[in-house]
């Protein structure tokens, strides 16, 4: 956005009495998402080498759990101090990132030793560690990572309790809450956005790795949990769909659309179809929630992530062992046809304004 466009936008808001005074000076453009992804991957590669350096150079120090936890904590504290020092140098940020990743790995190892590899307890402890780091280390990339790692560790704890079907719904609810808060708390916008992206990544990981009722995809676990209590499993599946319906209702309120109006009913019908399909394909609801929330927030990156999540989940669904291929075919074809019919109803009930019609044909 160049200077003239900024000025024009400011004047438009000024005319609507939303802002006053002089146009504020421009701030530096944010780093594009793919550059951040590249930096994150490089940060992890660097962290692995730092970890190997510590492991070989100071192996006597980190052999015991207190040594590993103290060293890891010192590394994370050093990283947080570097982030907080306000140093804008790219090297300092990358170094801090790698330092923190290495520290987290050491803390995880130390905690696992301390808790005698009790999977559930380790997951809960790591959730607490990542939550603390999320607030303590003020760096966007690091916060996205902490949000992802903390929420996924919590999802793993649910999995260990044989309540894995609840995980996608809970993570999706937290995700929606953060994105719906973005405009209400603009001063905490950077924090909320980092958390929101981290939770979106966590939804994808959760629906692919943990959403099934009988899957055991975690090779490091003691044993593959059985489906568990059937009623509880079903309640978890219901939660995924319910969250999608909840998100839809929240959006209708956001857009001042009465629930009983035609558009309101159309949206709720579409959400209902997907919620029903989520009982058998539990990743559908959460992935659609990412797409819809992204669109509602005017965030194309998030909406794009939702599309990727949906395609990824459908590809993964083929291999899920919860149902036979025939049952999956019934679910997908049934939901697909229902959505196409819902579209026809939508077009019939809400004829497009001229401009939108033209755009759709372009």
């Amino acid at each position, binding site marked *: *956005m*160049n200077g003239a*466009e*900024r000025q024009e*936008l400011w004047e438009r*808001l000024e005319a609507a009495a*939303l*802002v006053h005074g002089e146009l*504020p000076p421009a*701030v530096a*453009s944010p*780093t*594009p998402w*793919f*550059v951040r*992804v*590249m930096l994150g*991957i*490089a940060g992890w*590669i*660097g962290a692995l080498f*730092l970890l190997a350096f510590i492991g*070989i150079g100071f192996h006597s120090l980190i052999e015991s759990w207190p040594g590993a936890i103290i060293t890891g904590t010192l590394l994370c504290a050093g990283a947080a101090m570097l982030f907080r020092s306000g140093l804008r*140098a*790219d*090297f300092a*940020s*990358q170094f801090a990132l*790698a330092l923190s990743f290495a520290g987290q790995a050491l803390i995880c190892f130390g905690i696992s030793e301390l808790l005698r590899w009790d999977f559930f307890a380790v997951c809960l402890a790591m959730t607490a560690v990542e939550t603390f780091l999320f607030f303590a280390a003020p760096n966007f990339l690091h916060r996205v990572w902490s949000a992802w790692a903390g929420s996924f560790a919590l999802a793993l704890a649910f999995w260990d309790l044989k309540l894995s079907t609840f995980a996608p719904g809970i993570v999706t609810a937290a995700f929606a809450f953060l994105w719906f808060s973005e*405009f209400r708390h*603009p001063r905490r916008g950077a924090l909320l956005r980092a958390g929101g992206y981290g939770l979106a990544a966590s939804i994808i990981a959760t629906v692919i790795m943990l959403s099934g009722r009988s899957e055991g995809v975690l090779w490091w676990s003691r044993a593959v949990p059985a489906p568990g209590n059937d009623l509880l499993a079903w309640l978890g599946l219901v939660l995924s769909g319910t969250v999608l319906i909840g998100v839809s209702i929240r959006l209708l309120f*956001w857009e001042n659309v009465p629930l009983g109006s035609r*558009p309101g009913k*159309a949206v709720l019908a*579409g959400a209902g179809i997907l919620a029903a399909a989520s009982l058998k394909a539990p990743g559908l609801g959460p992935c*659609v929630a990412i*797409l*819809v929330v992204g*669109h*509602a927030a*005017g*965030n194309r990156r998030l909406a794009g992530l939702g599309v990727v999540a*949906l395609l990824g989940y459908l590809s993964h*669904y*083929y291999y899920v062992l919860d149902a036979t*291929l025939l049952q999956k*075919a019934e679910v997908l*074809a049934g939901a*697909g*046809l229902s*959505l*196409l019919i*819902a*579209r026809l109803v*939508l*077009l019939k009930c809400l004829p*497009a*304004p001229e401009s*939108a019609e033209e755009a*759709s044909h372009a």
Partner: protein
Amino acid sequence: MTDRRREILEWAEQGRLAPEDVRRALKLAGVLPSGGDWRLFLDRMLLWMGSVMSAAGVIFFLAYNWNEIGHFTKFGMVEAVFVATLFLVWKLGLERPAGKAALLGGAVLVGAIFALIGQTYQTGADSFELFATWAVLIVPWMLVGRFAALCVFWLLLVNLAVTLYTTVFHGLTGVVFGPERLLWQLLWLNTAALAIWEILAAYGVAWLRERWAARLIITAGGALCTALAVSDLCLRRGSSGWGFPVWLAWLAAVYVVYRFRIKDLYALAGGVLSVIVTVTCFLGKHMLRDHQAGSFLFIGLVVIALSAAGGWWLKRVAAEEKR
């Protein structure tokens, strides 16, 4: 839209815009969807999700090992759906998104019919023949459809056919070079596809200007090229010795094309990551033989320095392009 969104949220963060006015400001700036935008979004979402899920449902249905249904019934069911999609294409036309969605669904069903033939009659054909024939048969559809997603789908089929062919028929060179041969073939294929794509897009083929598709091919080409360079540098034995020089040439080409001609920062970021990975593998190969702690620290710091320098350079290029 992303810039306006960021700018308004920045003003709100600075306290120049009240929190309760943020949504109104974003609406005014056209960042948040209007009623018409929502309608269009729901229309597209229902259309694409409905089409993809229905097509996936048919494929899952066919993949199920049926004993109860006779051959003719199976064929009849798939062909009925296939004819229905073609009817929709004819009825809706190829200019509308719904028509394009039906065409993509039809293209997927062509493969489903071939798979069913193979499953039913045990023709003895190799898997690569299925994908190759499928790809050849939908070429006219791709040309008529003028639709980026269908082109990407076609390229995926060709990649699968080449991979399966090379896996089945190693030949004499296959014995010598092993998996490297496959990497080379896929690299040439995807590089050629990328070059054709970008040239046609530059010469005004509007439907090829969708960057997501070109970026997907850049990612595939870059990953293959990096794998070849790493294999050349780290696994000297059995390597053709061309991986590293070709990787350098690829990087140079990416730099010239995407820095000065097409200006796509995504490709440059991929190039930076490729450099980091290759340099790391090279250093690892030569420095980690004795597992010295200092070597690990040195490589770690090199990775951090390279990524920091790469990030700094990419941000500068991004800022330059904005001006």
